């Protein structure tokens, strides 16, 4: 264990919960939050009375169509009469929620924190994609009517060009994750598909096809995060938060390296340093890299230093990242298979690692013994990286 003199309390996750991820939920956003939060509390064997503080994360208010979504969700997140914080760093929010919960506990301010991520993307019509119009520079970019998939397509193309990966190699990520999701009861898009299916699905923005992209999803996920004293009382197998990192790269995406995610690499180095990890490619047993697009998982595997730059796609072909492989990635099914309710998706990834590290993942449990795990998320105007390292 690495000791950090500046941290008052060691921090552990003791419970996790999530709703089924689905396309159009009848549940209100609050009800989704409640369902996940209740499940996390039940798993921890705690009740709302044991919760000191609440951290809520949710992406733009314009998805759910309710302004001040933090205050709105507070009710279903058990934040009644408690200190509540809402965090938001775009798509990076999911992992930023446990990061924020960590400093609530590590500082000694709160003993036990309920950390909830929620997103209901179905209210915005005709498509939540329109919400993203307002993330662009109003003078330089917006008149061109940009679309998020533009960036992804360029990144994907750059990765393919620089690393010599073919579309078929990248599509394998989608195949793997959707297959992994078959064992996840909460999954929205679990399927046995082939590389061919991906290549033949609708071409959206070259070279991105429909099956390269994660779906639009409603859902929530929650964690119970507490200090060492409480953790030792409530469970025999706490999962420790050993490292965390978050960074912002260049705001101007024209100036960004597209083939390698530097925003993530900086955050990963911060997290590994805190966790005392020097060779992540050897020391990490299971990972949940953020995979809103299939190439993005490869990108993030490299950014997390689990593979050398430009080599992730080669290892993927060998089955290195399969559930029974040497370094399983996205054993949950990832965003491609389980779904992508922005903030909840990141929490789902951390929850999956929590279950993996406690050997509670059931059919999804990876074959090898696990000791340390890493998850990341990515967001803002595609320049925010958030990383969390867990250990059992």
């Amino acid at each position: 264990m690495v000791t950090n003199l500046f941290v008052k309390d060691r921090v552990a996750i003791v419970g996790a919960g999530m709703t089924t991820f689905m396309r159009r939920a009848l549940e209100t956003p609050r009800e989704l939050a409640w369902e996940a939060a209740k499940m996390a509390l039940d798993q921890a064997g705690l009740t709302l009375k044991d919760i000191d503080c609440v951290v809520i994360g949710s992406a733009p208010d314009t998805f759910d169509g309710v302004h001040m979504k933090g205050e709105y969700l507070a009710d279903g997140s058990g934040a009644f009469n408690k200190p509540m914080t809402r965090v938001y760093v775009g798509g990076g929010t999911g992992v930023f929620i446990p990061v924020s919960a960590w400093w609530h506990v590590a500082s000694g301010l709160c003993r036990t924190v309920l950390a909830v991520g929620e997103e209901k993307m179905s209210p915005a019509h005709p498509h939540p994609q329109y919400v993203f119009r307002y993330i662009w520079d109003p003078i330089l970019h917006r008149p061109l009517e940009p679309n998020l998939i533009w960036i992804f397509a360029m990144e994907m193309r750059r990765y393919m060009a620089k690393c010599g990966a073919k579309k078929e190699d990248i599509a394998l990520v989608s195949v793997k994750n959707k297959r992994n999701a078959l064992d996840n009861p909460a999954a929205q898009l679990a399927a046995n598909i082939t590389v061919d299916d991906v290549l033949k699905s609708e071409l959206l923005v070259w070279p991105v096809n429909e099956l390269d992209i994660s779906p639009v999803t409603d859902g929530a996920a929650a964690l119970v995060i507490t200090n060492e004293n409480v953790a030792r009382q409530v469970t025999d197998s706490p999962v420790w938060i050993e490292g965390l990192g978050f960074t912002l790269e260049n705001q101007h995406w024209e100036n960004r390296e597209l083939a390698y995610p530097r925003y993530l690499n900086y955050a990963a180095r911060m997290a590994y340093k805190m966790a005392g990890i020097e060779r992540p490619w050897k020391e990490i047993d299971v990972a949940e890299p953020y995979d809103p697009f299939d190439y993005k998982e490869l990108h993030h595997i490299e950014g997390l230093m689990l593979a050398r730059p430009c080599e992730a796609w080669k290892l993927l072909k060998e089955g290195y990242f399969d559930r029974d492989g040497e370094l399983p990635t996205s054993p949950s099914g990832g965003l491609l298979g389980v779904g992508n309710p922005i903030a909840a998706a990141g929490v789902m990834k951390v929850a999956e690692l929590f279950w993996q590290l406690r050997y509670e993942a059931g059919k999804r449990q990876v074959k090898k013994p696990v000791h340390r795990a890493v998850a990341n998320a990515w967001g803002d105007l595609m320049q925010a990286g958030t990383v969390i390292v867990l250990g059992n």
Partner: protein
Amino acid sequence: MSWDKDWRTSEIIFWPEREEVDKYVYTPGISGQELAKALMDGRVLGIKCKDGQVYVPPKTYCPDFSQGELVEIRGPWRLLHYTVVYEDLYGNRLQNPIVIGIIKPDDASNGLIHIVNAELERLRPGMELKPVFKPKDQRKGIITDIDHFEPV
């Protein structure tokens, strides 16, 4: 520098923008769905929690996160607090001021916010009110199915 004071809009370059999304489609939720059905029948529902408290409108979960039981709210309803609105959002003087009140049924621990149709001089907290529903064919399963509350 404030351009709307110094220049006319014709003298600056600007980009008008459209709305972010065309519309939002909200769902009522699990207990909200039950409330919607009840409103169509001219009834109001609440939720009874383990500690005996009844909340209106019903929620799927109680403040302690346990699940409660749906109950029908029968009243009588009483005015808790009220205010009188004299201008609309655009600053136009309203011909008939609108009374907004929080109206609590005796068999629940909280109240609903709604419009009260009563003469201003008759208003006093604690007075008994009753919900007036819209005609059955105009009800949509939303809170405005109760057209207003009025004195008994």
